[in-house]
């Protein structure tokens, strides 16, 4: 594409004319960008600016007046105050829901290792192996409200399949989704069930198939067994995939948990499955419709995600993401 390189440096055009000429030269590019640009401005940039503004107000949906409150929302959200009982969070709910979010993120490493295990299994050259790959991918295809409703039934205390299976081996299962102790593990099990055989398995599978066979041959010559060659060849060679899967999992984890909690537990019992994204929904769209405060929570969530992304950039440059 050298065709549109500067051609007429000799031409002595006046400045505005030159600018118009340049604009005409770049016009095709601008036209190609236009549809996306319009959407980007209307549905991303403008809302982003409005959101930042709202985060510093006490706006409620049904109240006409809006007051500027400075950093008031943020102080209320993440600040601490001295009370008679000592130092206490201004919004204890937020810290509890952040804890819930982090707890549910235990599912990230769990499903990552499950994906690796499945990838190792389906990487064998055996007849019919693609059938298994397809079956493992099914939950990812079905992911969404329908599957979450199914799991609501699966975890039902009396008629659910999980407790039936447990009672078959002589264990009386808990009332999973009604118990503050068991609701979170139940949600993690669902998350692992959905994600294990999905995109992450395929990323690992591609990683496995890109490992040069010479490395295994060299390991074999050095007398390495199965486990030693996994530890010294497979695992380090998969590091970029692992890094990518883990970071994306963490970033997704901070923002996640809404759909599962909404369908399976309504954030309960006693708020024990309410995540940050669910808290934003409750604050902004349910009950008091605290739009300003909801925006403030969303911006704190953004900062958390950005911190993870920056760590990712700092340590992961040039590994899994290539030039992207």
């Amino acid at each position, binding site marked *: *594409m050298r*065709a549109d390189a500067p051609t007429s440096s000799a031409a002595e055009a006046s400045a505005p004319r030159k600018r118009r000429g340049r604009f005409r030269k*770049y016009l*095709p*590019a*601008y036209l*190609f*960008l236009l*549809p*996306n640009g319009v959407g980007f401005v209307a*549905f991303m940039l*403008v*809302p*982003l600016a409005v959101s930042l503004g709202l985060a510093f107000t006490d706006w409620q949906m049904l109240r006409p007046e809006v007051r500027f409150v400075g950093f008031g929302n943020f102080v209320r959200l993440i600040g601490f105050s001295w009370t008679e009982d000592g130092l206490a969070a201004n919004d204890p709910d937020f810290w509890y829901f952040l804890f819930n979010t982090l707890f549910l993120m235990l599912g990230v490493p769990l499903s990552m290792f499950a994906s690796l295990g499945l990838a190792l*299994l389906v990487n*064998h*050259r055996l007849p019919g*192996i693609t059938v*298994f790959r*397809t079956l*493992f991918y*099914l939950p990812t295809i*079905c*992911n*969404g*409200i*329908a*599957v979450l*409703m*199914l*799991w609501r*039934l*699966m975890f039902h205390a009396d*008629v659910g*399949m999980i407790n*039936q299976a447990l009672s078959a081996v002589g264990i009386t299962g808990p009332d999973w989704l009604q118990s503050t102790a068991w609701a979170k593990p139940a949600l993690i099990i669902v998350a692992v*069930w959905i994600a294990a055989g999905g995109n992450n398995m*395929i990323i690992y599978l*591609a990683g496995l*198939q*890109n490992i040069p066979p010479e490395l295994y041959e060299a390991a074999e010559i050095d007398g390495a067994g199965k486990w030693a060659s996994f530890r010294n060849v497979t695992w380090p060679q998969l590091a970029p995939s692992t890094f990518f899967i883990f970071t994306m999992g963490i*970033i997704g984890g*901070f*923002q996640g948990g809404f*759909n599962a909690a*909404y*369908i399976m537990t309504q954030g309960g019992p006693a708020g024990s499955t309410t995540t940050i*994204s669910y808290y*934003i*929904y409750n604050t902004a*769209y349910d009950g008091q419709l605290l*739009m300003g405060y909801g*925006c403030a929570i*969303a911006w704190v*969530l953004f900062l958390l*995600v950005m911190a993870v*992304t920056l760590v990712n950039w700092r340590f992961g440059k040039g590994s899994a*993401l*290539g030039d*992207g």
Partner: protein
Amino acid sequence: MSEQPRRASVPKREQVRPIRALVIYLALSLLAASTVVPLLWMVSTSVKQPGVPYTDFLPGVPTLRHYAEALQLTPFSRYYVNSIIIAVVVTLGQLSTSAMAGYAFARLRFPGRDKLFFAYIATMMIPSAVTMVPLFMILTRAPIYLNDWLGTDYFTSEQFFLGRWFAGVPLGADSYFALIAPLLFSPFGTFLLRQFFIAIPRSLDEAAMLDGCNAFQTFTQVILPLSKPALATLAIFTFMSAWGNFLWPLIMINAEQMKPLPVGLAGFIGEYATNWPLMMAGATMMLVPMIIVFFFCQRFFVKGIQLGAVKG
């Protein structure tokens, strides 16, 4: 994307010994069962005759009465139509905007191109929760302001698009516009297609330019035909995510006849709390199209995940 996956270096593994193969098959079968059995139980529950306990895995003589019930008790067919409209329009729209922008970023020259590109894809890490409140606010108020400004009541009153089936307000809450428009552009789609376009040899579009093609003709006659796999991949992923989109329509839609499938289905929980066969019938109906798409387009899934993630 500068190099294709190294197909040639896939190791020729030694023959797996029979005993080991047996163990592997056994493990695979157990894991596959734990994946598939819940889904089969869903279908089985949805076709159970009344009186057969939920705890039975097999339904006995199957019945479709719960499916009929779901279609009668709720505007389920309307949910379906809404979901199809949304998914199709969003897919076509996002594909066009992403391909055009991806082409500009990959091939055309303009000042600050790469900086703009990275700034654009950096917005991918902004959680959707950040823009959701203002978007909700803008979209619900826009029709009221437009009415005031233009002195009409067009934007808040029900209109008939293509007859009764698509009746609804043109803008604002409970409109197709609110469900579709914010999803018509995508930094991810632009990123994915730009990466693919960059890998197409430049000699091909240079040849087209020499033959007198302008940028638009090169785009439609050279780049797009060569990018069918990438376009198909993006189409499938966009379709799936539009089909499953939940939170945004949950916020924007109150009217029963405007709900897409996930929101309509979620409403079952409140309405028919213990009628599990009915709920499972609804869930099954929602999943069937996805599973069909999946079985026809499997190879694009693998391609797409590698393109988007690993090879990024």
